[in-house]
């Protein structure tokens, strides 16, 4: 139902505003839902919902150790729609992590991060970090057992960074342990600094998308242009309505969790980090902290920030998976990495006990380097196999690396989330 008739009417001020965000005309392929799935737009919508509900929550929240938990209880029991607003905030935050992750995956696999879009990929990654950071800082605020111990665990990871780790962790916590200072720090970050930074990055992100000529599309001889109003805008409004309706419906029936008040003298068993960090926690179980908290996260971050800037020889901007071979390698490497990670974790849990067998070796080698090689060597061999057997070039191999990293993380996350019980031992 593309509407191409040109009427000479003055656009209303709302239309004019929309035309500041969107161009007046847009390629007809860009508004197909399966080009973007509207994920970036969903993230922006969720950010607005989070801001509004967050502002309402600020009216009843008290950021002190004595009152934080009680103020949540008060919100729950004595405020009209208090629990509903909290549920909405909680659910939107959860959904935002999922949506922004899917947005990242979508953008990468449609090969839309190269050349002039490279800079925008960096802004996107920074925003992904901010999404995680704001979820994490918000996690502490209810000051219940779940919050307290998750934050204890994660901030302690920072301490393993050599040289600056301890002072960095001290800055984040504002103290040696998680206490009132941490609560104040996190409250300030969560309700002030991170949203501000986010707005700035969001503006840059949107502006750079427009500078690059809208979303990335495969090269085509002929372009069919359609009006943004109403073709694109109506779809955006429809998607927004669906998301809002879904959120409201879920928030009416699903309550945001609240455990007992935080007790620094007793760790719950098991103590799990927030679900999006569970992959990192799983890594900590199997590897020496120097590897799992320093080398691997930093190497992965470098790899992702570098993605647009490696030397590629066949860029296919806007094409899903770059090429048919790319599609094959992506799907196969994701599945293999998932199964391999699972099998390796199972073996380490039940059969390989290098920390006991090599107990007189330094820990960095026996529980760090050796398990790491158990993962890295087969992965390298697998990539080499694709290179030699199928002539996969650098573009496809880097895509395989990305798939392997993402798939392994999801595997570890699911294991930690679903298969770990008391004492963080595997339940089978």
């Amino acid at each position: 139902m593309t509407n191409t008739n040109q009427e000479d009417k003055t656009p209303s001020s709302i239309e004019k505003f929309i035309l500041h965000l969107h161009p007046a005309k847009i390629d007809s392929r860009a508004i197909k839902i399966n080009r973007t799935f509207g994920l970036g737009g969903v993230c922006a919508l969720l950010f607005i919902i989070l801001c509004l509900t967050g502002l309402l929550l600020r009216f009843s929240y008290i950021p002190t150790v004595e009152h934080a938990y009680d103020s949540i209880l008060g919100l729950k029991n004595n405020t009209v729609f208090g629990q509903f607003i909290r549920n909405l905030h909680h659910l939107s935050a959860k959904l935002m992590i999922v949506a922004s992750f899917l947005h990242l995956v979508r953008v990468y696999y449609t090969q839309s991060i190269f050349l002039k879009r490279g800079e925008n990929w960096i802004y996107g990654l920074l925003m992904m970090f901010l999404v995680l950071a704001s979820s994490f800082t918000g996690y502490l605020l209810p000051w219940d057992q779940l919050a307290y111990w998750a934050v204890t665990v994660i901030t302690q990871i920072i301490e393993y960074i050599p040289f600056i780790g301890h002072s960095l962790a001290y800055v984040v916590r504002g103290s040696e342990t998680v206490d009132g200072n941490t609560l104040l720090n996190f409250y300030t970050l969560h309700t002030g600094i991170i949203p501000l930074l986010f707005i700035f990055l969001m503006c840059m992100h949107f502006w750079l998308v427009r500078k690059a000529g809208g979303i990335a599309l495969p090269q085509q001889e002929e372009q069919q242009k359609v009006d943004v109003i109403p073709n694109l805008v109506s779809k955006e409004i429809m998607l927004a309505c669906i998301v809002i309706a879904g959120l409201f419906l879920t928030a009416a029936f699903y309550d945001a969790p609240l455990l007992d008040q935080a007790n620094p003298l007793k760790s719950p068993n098991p103590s799990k980090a927030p679900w999006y960090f569970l992959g990192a926690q799983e890594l900590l179980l199997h590897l020496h902290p120097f590897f799992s908290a320093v080398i691997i996260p930093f190497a992965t971050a470098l790899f992702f920030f570098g993605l647009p800037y490696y030397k590629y020889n066949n860029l296919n901007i806007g094409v899903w998976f770059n090429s048919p071979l790319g599609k094959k390698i992506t799907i196969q490497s994701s599945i293999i990495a998932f199964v391999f990670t699972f099998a390796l974790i199972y073996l380490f849990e039940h059969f390989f006990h290098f920390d006991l067998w090599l107990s007189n070796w330094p820990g960095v080698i026996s529980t760090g380097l050796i398990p790491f090689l158990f993962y890295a060597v087969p992965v390298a061999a697998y990539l080499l196999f694709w290179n030699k057997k199928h002539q996969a070039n650098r573009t496809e191999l880097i895509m395989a690396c990305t798939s392997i990293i993402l798939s392994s993380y999801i595997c570890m996350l699911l294991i930690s989330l679903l298969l770990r019980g008391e004492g963080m031992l595997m339940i089978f």
Partner: protein
Amino acid sequence: MKLNRRKFIKRTLIALATVEAFFLLRGSVNKVDTSSGTTELFNAGKATAFDKNKLYPFLTGQFFLKRFEDGGFLAMSFKCTHLGCVVNTNSKTGGFNCPCHASQFNKFGEVLSAPATRPLDYFPITIEKGELLIDTRKPIRRSSFNKSQLTYL
């Protein structure tokens, strides 16, 4: 990437400003120590009241007090050295288990199984007029257990 003199100077200045900004920020967001700052030590009570070869948890002081067979006292922090969870006592081995990441420690606080990489920290003990005084302000890190960490009556 070509780096000429101007670019070099510009980037050096930006790097220096970033480092400076980091330290300024760190200094200004650091909280003033709100603890009362007294040198009060944790009083665990009469030393003779503790049986040999027994473990006494002092949750408010955040440590486990162990008296070994030879009468030596050791106050071990209850925080797992891996990621700071509170360890539980393990009645089977006489040691400690961490609920977060499954680290295990023996009765001396040494690591039995990873991921923890160093033994539980301990607090210095002084004995005054037969009473155990434990300095809980600063846990002491160690790489293994030895006799000098024990305090005798």
